[in-house]
């Protein structure tokens, strides 16, 4: 099944400081108590947002000047921990179209790609430059999946996106099920050759 082609994501950016931000922080477990993803974006970073407000601060996701952000800028190992897809779902449903950071946890990046949310890794020095460029709330960012770059404030830096995810997004084939069902007879052939699939009988 083909999906939306995603070649570039453009718009203002939102900077979320910190490394090793786990999916429990992105989406606390109590908000997983639901049977749909509807409205889950309302709880994105809820505990961190409340904690920031209680200290008299403003969490980046509560900054009215960033409400139209399309690009989320994070640190390293973003999305570590639980495999809950609720985390990338909430980020995407909030309005983010691409995440840029130093590195991403594997399950998170895979889940994000599977719902059409690219995760692009940039070098640490380039990340600093992008963070500075994002200081101006309206600054336009472009994540270009075809060119493998992130651009802002007249500067363009290299971005790494896992090749399979990049290929799937720019060809509109990131919705994998159709592809996996395409030649189901091949799946059956592999299963038939596995002794455990017939419980080691014969």
């Amino acid at each position, binding site marked *: 099944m083909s999906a939306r082609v995603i070649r570039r994501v453009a718009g203002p950016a939102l900077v979320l400081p910190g490394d090793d931000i786990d999916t429990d*922080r992105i989406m606390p477990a*109590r908000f997983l108590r639901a049977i*749909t993803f509807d409205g889950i974006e309302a709880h994105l970073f809820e505990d961190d947002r409340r904690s920031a407000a209680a200290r008299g601060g403003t969490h980046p996701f509560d900054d009215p000047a960033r409400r139209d952000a399309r690009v989320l800028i994070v640190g390293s190992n973003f999305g*570590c921990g639980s495999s809950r897809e609720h985390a990338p779902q909430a980020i995407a449903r909030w309005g983010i179209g691409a995440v840029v950071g130093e590195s991403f*946890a594997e399950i998170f990046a895979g*889940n994000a790609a599977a719902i059409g949310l690219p995760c692009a890794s940039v070098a640490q020095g380039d990340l600093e430059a992008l963070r500075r460029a994002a200081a101006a709330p309206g600054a336009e960012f472009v994540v270009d999946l075809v060119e493998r770059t992130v651009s802002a404030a007249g500067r363009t830096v290299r971005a790494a996106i896992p090749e399979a995810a990049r290929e799937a997004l720019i060809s509109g084939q990131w919705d*994998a099920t159709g592809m996996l069902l395409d030649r189901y007879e091949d799946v059956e052939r592999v299963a038939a050759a*596995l002794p*455990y699939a017939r*419980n080691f009988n014969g």
Partner: protein
Amino acid sequence: MPETLFQKVWNRHAVRVLPNGQTQIYVGLHLVHEVTSPQAFAELRARGWRVRAPERTFATVDHIVPTRGQARPFADAMAETMAEALERNCREHGIPLFDLASGAQGIVHVIGPELGLTQPGMTIVCGDSHTSTHGAFGALAFGIGTTQVRDVLASQSIAMSPLKVRRIDVEGRLPAGVYAKDVILSIIGRLGIKAGAGFAYEYGGDTIARMSMDERMTICNMSIEGGARIGYVNPDETTIEYLRGRKFAPAGAAFERARAWWRSLASDPSATYDDRVALDARGIAPTVTWGINPGQVVPVDARLPDPRGASAADRGGIEEALEFMGFQPGQAMAGTRIDVAFLGSCTNARLSDLREAAKVAAGRRVARHVRALVVPGSQAVAAAAEREGLDAIFRDAGFEWRGAGCSMCLAMNTDRLEGRELCASSSNRNFKGRQGSPTGRTLLMSPAMVAAAAIAGEVVDVRAMLAQAAGS
């Protein structure tokens, strides 16, 4: 050409290379629970697809079940809704469900192995990052998201790219009072929480070879906390003897055929690895996390780090963790007062975990200010523990003895921390807010250390308590 288990199992499950360059991998066992599956079933329904291999799909309810007051309908309406959705989905698609009435319900990563569903050489997926647990049997087992749960339901396969393999050798006898949990916390503390990205971890060496399946599961369970989606141990006679006679394991002549196949999948002695790490088990002490990720660990007899002495890269993380935990730089780990003791989770709620903790609890009393819970990993673990009288030991000591479930590991049920409570926990994650209170705090440690902390009312070195018990 010599191969690792990873390569052997990968190659036997590879269906074809997909247009995007990934490999389509056949899935041998799909485990399903109530939290990450309802949206996947809904999409299946919307697209008119069926579950391709219901006979290779098994479900249980674990995350949202209350651990007391388990009568239906649940008092918590949302828990009831989620349980009903899973029941409906399983009924509609012919998927076996181990529910509370089955006697076989429990945490998905506890029941898969104990039912004999988890076997060497399989590919195993579940919408849960601790699926790495099943790697203890020499399976390639990993957590997936809900969209991939849909893929697997519809196609019994998954798109993925191969991983590199890091061999982690642990050698030497573990000192008394030091357990598998201390080994894996030490590994994560040394390698860090993101070192595993792109890798499967293969655990070996004589320490691992001497470990029971329960202990190997504890090790593999926390691979994901080191960033590795997959962790495994090569199958050996310990693996095979564990599986003999289990409900879904092959029997009779088929078991002997299985044994030969399982043994053939172990990594070849001359296999090459993308990386190798060695650890001396004799130098490991009871280990405790002090911060907000599972890599922030210290031996129980050590002091917390001082950000002033840390590298620039680590400083911010240490400061943030100390502030959240309310700890001082350089403070001693031992003597930290706790409020709650939680003995449970897919990491450490198997029978042997409860036995080790019961040895510490026997004849002692939980400190007056501590709320202490024992939550068996499954109904089968609970029944076995009760036959041995472990429940009585815990109850007499002042622990609550609960029904099986994920409980306070992630607090999607009624078990949770309140306010800034500090919890000595045998679970796997100490992230901010993990145990249900946004300001609640977690210290990860072994089950025996949790029992010791419950009794002392503070973090203590379980080795001293064990020596006391032996001497009395």
